[in-house]
């Protein structure tokens, strides 16, 4: 049995399995195909939602297979591990060989090499070997690359190459994937992701971490000073703005108004504008002034909460109408003065002077409803993210090296012919984009041949 496959040791077979490109193709296709599932089955929804969609038995199977969080499941992770092992083994297997070839290029054009090259030409020149070697070396330097010159038993060999980097492209790309994975792992282990709502005027120092219910101590305090929403004339949202302060030991150390796409960063922790809403009920804004018109202040009336006014009485907001008898927004208030029957009347937002008609010592005017807002912030710390970006940059560089550079090699062999003339052989090869190289070679050929003494 001389069959090569049968003589392989088990170790070699395992190694061959993990270094095969076929495994890479299959893994890539299987990863692509299984990834589809997670886009059809909505991920990370509450169980009730799945029960609405799936029968109990289907739910049980899908749940067992971790299909509701498949991208973080053991089996998906194992496929990524297989992918990475395959990638690493291929690199370990092929990189040293490639490096050896690059470091020790075949600088001599022997008969065997010449046979494998499709681009070659030969001619004869009168003169001496060294004379022509010098001339051709000059021409190659000028129009291609500086050649290495080796002389052996009556022959001179010139060898020049460009675009060696092209050979490294594939390894840079593969390495970049591993670097991205390392960055992602660091981010997962040493970082956190959270979400927090902060009402206007309030502060937080801890953030609930996503998935787990743990609280992450920030090590400082973040206060939301104000939230505002800007709209286009059409009513579509234009900007969500949160005025945030970072406090350490009660002292403000940083203040920034953040919007979507412009987060706040402090000590490696990032705060992103993500959501907003109303915090608690609305209050009615009412300004108070004396009969002669001098203002005495503004009050905020919560529904049915009595607010005392010095030397006057107690005022309560009891009702609100968006369009009171066709007159627009209005507030219904009740005033109680000591020892007098309570008075009840409406204040129109559109007519701040209306209350003068009551002819009382104090005049109220309604400025509209105002509600306290909260801002919703994504909070993230990811110490691995810059490693991920490094990997991404390397990936693009690697792809460009691999696809758009070409390792081009040119050989010239000069030998003393029997007729006293110098026999010249010119040959070339390119690792990729042979069509383009053919044209370059033709040009070089004409150039070199045209060289005169």
């Amino acid at each position, binding site marked *: 049995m001389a069959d090569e496959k049968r003589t392989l040791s088990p170790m070699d077979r395992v190694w061959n399995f993990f270094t095969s490109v076929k495994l890479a193709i299959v893994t*890539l296709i299987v990863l*692509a195909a299984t990834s589809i599932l997670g886009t059809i089955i909505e991920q990370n929804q509450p169980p009730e939602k799945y029960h609405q969609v799936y029968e109990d038995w289907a739910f049980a199977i899908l749940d067992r297979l971790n299909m509701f969080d498949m991208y973080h499941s053991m089996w998906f992770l194992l496929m990524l591990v297989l992918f990475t092992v395959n990638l690493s083994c291929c690199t370990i297997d092929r990189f040293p060989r490639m490096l050896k070839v690059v470091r020790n290029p075949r600088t001599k054009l022997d008969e065997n090499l010449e046979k494998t090259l499709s681009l070659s030409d030969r001619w004869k020149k009168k003169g001496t070997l060294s004379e022509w070697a010098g001339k051709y070396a000059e021409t190659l330097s000028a129009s291609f690359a500086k050649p290495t010159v080796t002389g052996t038993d009556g022959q001179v060999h010139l060898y020049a190459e460009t675009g060696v980097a092209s050979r490294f492209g594939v390894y840079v790309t593969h390495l970049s994937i591993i670097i991205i994975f390392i960055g*992602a792992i660091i981010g997962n282990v040493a970082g956190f992701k959270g979400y927090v709502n902060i009402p206007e005027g309030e502060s937080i120092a801890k953030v609930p971490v996503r998935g787990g219910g743990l609280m992450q101590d920030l090590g400082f305090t973040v206060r939301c000073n104000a939230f505002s929403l800007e709209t286009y004339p059409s009513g579509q*949202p234009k*900007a969500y703005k949160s005025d945030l302060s970072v406090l350490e030991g009660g002292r403000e150390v940083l203040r920034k108004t953040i919007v979507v796409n412009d987060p706040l960063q402090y000590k490696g922790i990032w705060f992103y504008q993500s959501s907003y809403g109303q915090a608690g009920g609305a209050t009615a804004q009412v300004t108070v002034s004396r009969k002669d018109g001098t203002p005495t202040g503004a009050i905020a009336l919560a529904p049915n909460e009595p607010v005392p006014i010095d030397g006057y009485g107690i005022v309560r907001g009891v009702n609100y109408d968006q369009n009171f008898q066709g007159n627009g927004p209005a507030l219904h208030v009740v005033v109680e003065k000591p020892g007098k029957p309570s008075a009840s009347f409406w204040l129109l937002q559109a007519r701040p002077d209306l209350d003068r008609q009551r002819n009382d010592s104090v005049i109220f005017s309604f400025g509209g409803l105002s509600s306290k807002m909260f801002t919703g912030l994504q909070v993230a710390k990811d110490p691995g993210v810059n490693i991920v970006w490094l990997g*991404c940059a390397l990936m693009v560089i690697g792809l460009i090296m691999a696809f758009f550079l070409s390792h081009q090699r040119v050989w010239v062999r000069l030998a003393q012919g029997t007729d006293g003339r110098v026999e010249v052989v010119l040959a070339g090869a390119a690792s990729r984009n042979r069509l383009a190289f053919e044209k370059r070679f033709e040009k070089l050929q004409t150039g070199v041949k045209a060289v005169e003494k």
Partner: protein
Amino acid sequence: MSNVILFNLTTVLFGVASALYLGALYAKNDKISGVGTWVCVLAAVVSTAALGVRWYESYQMGIGRIPVTNLYESLVFFAWAVNLFYLIVERKYRNRTFGAFVMPIAFFTMLFAVYNDSSIQPLVPALQSYWLHAHVITCFVGYAAFAVSAGVALMYLLKSKQEAAKINTGVVGLLPACKVLDDIVYRAIIWGFPFLTAGIITGAAWANYAWGTYWSWDPKETWSLIVWLVYAAFLHARVTRGWHGKRAAILSIVGFLATIMCYLGVNLVLSGLHSYGGG
């Protein structure tokens, strides 16, 4: 809006070019496809002008933004890029039969665009970012390259069937040799792949700047990864014995179908964070 009129004109020109290329193939007349080329060149000029006018008009409206931010704009930008890519391939390979397989893609894209809202709307807060430009442009240049590749891959499958049977007559006989087609399928992908990669990366960078996560496995992200994986498989297939040729051509077509799913299907069928797509 004058930009929409220009885009409608582009649609007509793409339709005429497609018909000319198909007719030329049917009639085996290269003069007809020569006219097709000039129609494509005219369409390139008109659609480029249309994009410029639309950009200018958005400033006149006080909105002022690049015209690649909703479904309509992404469709017309995609068709614009496909046409340009096609013209490069045609010029480089001096063969006009590709037009019959590639230009209909641009034409149907424009037809689909016509049925979508073409008004210029202001940007919602999530899209107000400089990353938008880099992200959308890189993605769609990649998609356009994949469209060209898939069209030529289809030609390859037709031609290889005929070459295997050693026939060289009929319409398919006019197509370039399998070797040439295989080369174009590959070449279009080595342009598309780095652009798609850059598109995914700029998308991740943007997501990280807007939400604090560069990857959240949302359906759009996942589908872009699926597309990337299919083309990565293609690139490896091409250097593996038993996998190049026909299988690689099939992978190119599968890759483009995945691209369409990523681009349109996710928005029309699945839910996610991306804004265009009738939402």
